[in-house]
C-alpha cells in the first residue's frame, strides 16, 4: 500500500496517542489517581494501529486485557476512554467496565476482556453473524501469545476455518504471557504452526513496523472480505512496561528491553516518513504536540468527571 501524507499523519497520531495515553496512565497509577490494574500497550502501538487502519468503520475488532491501544485505534474517544479507566460516569462504559473492559460496540469495538482468550469466541461468533447476514464486514481479533495456549483459542480457530468465517486472528507475540516466556509456555516457538492444526492460512509480520503490519493485515482482511476464510497472523512485538505496575520484570533482561526499545515503532515510522519526505520533522513535532494536548485534555476531562451515582449500581444489568 502507498502511504500518503494523510495516512502517515493518521498512523503517527494514533501511535503517539496510544504511547502518551499509556505513559500518562503509568503516571496516574504511580500517583494512585488511577486505581486497579492497567496492562499497558506502550511499545506495541504499530500492531493495533496498523491492523485497524485497514478496516472499514463498520468492521469489528475484539481486544484483550491490554486493550487501550486497540480502543484508541478503533476510533476511540480519548476522553471517554480515560474517564472509563478512572471509573467515571463519563467513561465509555459509564465507569462500570474499567481498563479491562473498554468497549464501544457502536464503533465496532466488541470489547477488551479480563479473561485471556476470552474474546476469541465473541470474534468468531461475530464472524458467523457477518457470514449469515452477508454484510461484508470483517473481524480482527487481537490476543497475546499466552492466549494461544488456552483451549478456547483452538476451539475457535477450528470453527472459523471449518466455516470459512471472515475473521483475521492477530496474535501479538510480545514474548511473554505475564512472566512466562513463549519458550516456557508453548511447545512450538513458531506460533504460526498452530494454524496448521486447522488448515488455516498464516502469516508473520514485524509488529514494530506499522506499514508492514498494515500491508499484511490488509492482505488477509481482503481475503476474509472476499469470503475466502480466516487467517492467523503473528505480529512480533514487545511491551515496554511490566505486565502490571508491581511487576519487577525478573523474567527478562534489561538488555532485551533495550534491544526492543531501539526498535521503537514510533521512531521507526516517523524516521522513515521523514526520510521519504512524506512528513517533515516539523510535521512530526506538530503531531506530537497536538497529541500531548489531547491527552492532557483527556486527563483533565476524566479527573473532573464525577463518579457514577449510587443508583447506577443496579442499572444496565438487563435490557
Amino acid at each position, binding site marked *: 500500500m502507498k502511504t500518503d501524507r494523510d495516512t502517515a499523519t493518521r498512523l503517527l497520531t494514533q501511535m503517539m496517542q496510544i504511547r502518551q495515553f499509556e505513559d500518562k496512565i503509568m503516571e496516574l497509577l504511580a500517583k494512585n489517581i488511577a486505581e486497579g490494574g492497567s496492562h499497558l500497550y506502550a511499545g506495541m502501538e504499530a500492531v493495533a494501529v496498523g491492523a485497524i487502519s485497514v478496516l472499514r468503520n463498520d468492521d*469489528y475488532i475484539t481486544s484483550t486485557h491490554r486493550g487501550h491501544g486497540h480502543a484508541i485505534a478503533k476510533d476511540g474517544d480519548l476522553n471517554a476512554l480515560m474517564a472509563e479507566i478512572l471509573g467515571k460516569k463519563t*467513561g*465509555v*462504559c*459509564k*465507569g*462500570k*467496565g474499567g481498563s479491562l*473492559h473498554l*468497549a*464501544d*460496540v*457502536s464503533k465496532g469495538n*466488541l*470489547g477488551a*476482556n*479480563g*479473561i485471556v482468550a*476470552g474474546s*476469541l*469466541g*465473541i*470474534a*468468531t*461468533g*461475530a*464472524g*458467523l*453473524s*457477518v457470514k*449469515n*447476514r452477508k*454484510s461484508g464486514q470483517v473481524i480482527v481479533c487481537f490476543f497475546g501469545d499466552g492466549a494461544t495456549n488456552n*483451549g*478456547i483459542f483452538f*476451539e*475457535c480457530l*477450528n*470453527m472459523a476455518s*471449518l*466455516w470459512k468465517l471472515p475473521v483475521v486472528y492477530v496474535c501479538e507475540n510480545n514474548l511473554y504471557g505475564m512472566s512466562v516466556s513463549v519458550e516456557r509456555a508453548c511447545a512450538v516457538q513458531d506460533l504460526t504452526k498452530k494454524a496448521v492444526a486447522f488448515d488455516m492460512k498464516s502469516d508473520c509480520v514485524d509488529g514494530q513496523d506499522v506499514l508492514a503490519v498494515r500491508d499484511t493485515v490488509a492482505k488477509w482482511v481482503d481475503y476474509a472480505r472476499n469470503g475466502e476464510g480466516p487467517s492467523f497472523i503473528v505480529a512480533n512485538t514487545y511491551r515496554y512496561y511490566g505486565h502490571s505496575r508491581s511487576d519487577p520484570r525478573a523474567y527478562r533482561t534489561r538488555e532485551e528491553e533495550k534491544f526492543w526499545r531501539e526498535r521503537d515503532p514510533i521512531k521507526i515510522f516517523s524516521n522513515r516518513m521523514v526520510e521519504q519526505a512524506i512528513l517533515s520533522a516539523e510535521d512530526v513535532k506538530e503531531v506530537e504536540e497536538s497529541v500531548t494536548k489531547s491527552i492532557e485534555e483527556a486527563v483533565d476531562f476524566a479527573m473532573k468527571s464525577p463518579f457514577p451515582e449510587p443508583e447506577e449500581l443496579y*442499572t*444496565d*444489568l*438487563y*435490557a
Partner: protein
Amino acid sequence: MREITYRQALNEALKEEMERDSSVFLLGEDIAIYGGAYGVTVDLWKKYGDARVLDTPISENAIVGVGLGAALTGMRPVAEIMYIDFIGLCMEQLNNQVAKIRYMFGGKCKVPFTLRTEGGAGRTLGAHHSQSLESWLMHIPGIKVVMPSTPSDAKGLLKSSIREDNPVVFIEHKMLYNIKGEVPEGEYTVPIGVADIKRTGKDVTVLTYSRMYHFCMEAAGILEKEGIDIEVVDLRTLLPLDMETILKSVRKTNRVIIVEEDCKTGGTGAEIGMKITEEAFDWLDAPVVRVAGADVPMPKSPVLEKLAIPDTKRICDAARKILNK
C-alpha cells in the same frame, strides 16, 4: 385440546420462532443431521439447512462464546449444550462474558441469546449425565433461568426466551421429553419470571419446578385422599424468582415445602427458602422444608439413583410431617 409431547412442543417453538424471525439460528452438537441427542431439533436442519441449524464440533466453551458474538452483532442465536453436566466447560464464557457484558459495557449492547440444555437423573446414566446444576446459574446476575415442567409451558417459555433481549438459560429435563400434555394450536407465549399455581390448596405450599413438579402432583393426589390439600406452585423461572406469587401462597398456607432434584447443599431450595424466611418469617408456622437430592454424585445403579433424588413418598412424608399428621 390437542396433546403433544414436551419434545414436540419445544420443536414447534423453535420452528415457529425461526419462521418468524430470520435472525434466529441454532447451533450445537448433533443438532442438525441427528436432530439433537434428545431429538428436540429434529427435522429443522432439513428445513433450514446449515446456515440456520449448525452442527458444531465438540467445543462447548466456543459454542457459548460464538453464540454471544453472534448475539452482539445482530443475530438471535439458540445454542444447545447437550447435557447440563457439560456446562462446566462453558461456565467461563457464560458467567464472565454472556452474563456480564451488557453491565460491563454500561448497557450499551444487548444479548438476545438463548442457551438450551437439559439435566436431571432418571436414566441411570451415571454421574456425568444426570446432574441438576441450576443453582450455579441462579447465582449469575445478568442471565435468566427457565425450567419448564409441561409441554405447554415448554413451548411458551422457549418462545419468550428466544424473543428476550437478555441471555436465557433454558433447562429441559431428560425424563420429560416424552410426556404428553395439552398445547394450544397457534401462537402464544408464556412470560418469563412468572410462577404458575398449578394446583390450589390450603394446607401447604409446595414450591417446585421441572420434573419434580410431576412428583408433587402425584403426591397431591395421594395426600388429597388423606385430607391434606397442598398447593403446588410451579416456579417455571428460577431467575428472577416470582416472589409475589410465592409469598401470596405462603401467606395463605403458612407452610412451605420446596421440592428440588439438585443436591441439597447449595441448591436452589436454599435461596428460595431463605428468601421466604426473610420476607415472610411471621407467616410461617413451621420452618421451610426442603425435599432435595442427596449430596453425592449421581450413582449409576438404578436402586441408588432412585434414592438420590426425591420421590413421591418423601414428598408425602414431608407434607404429613409439616402438618404433624
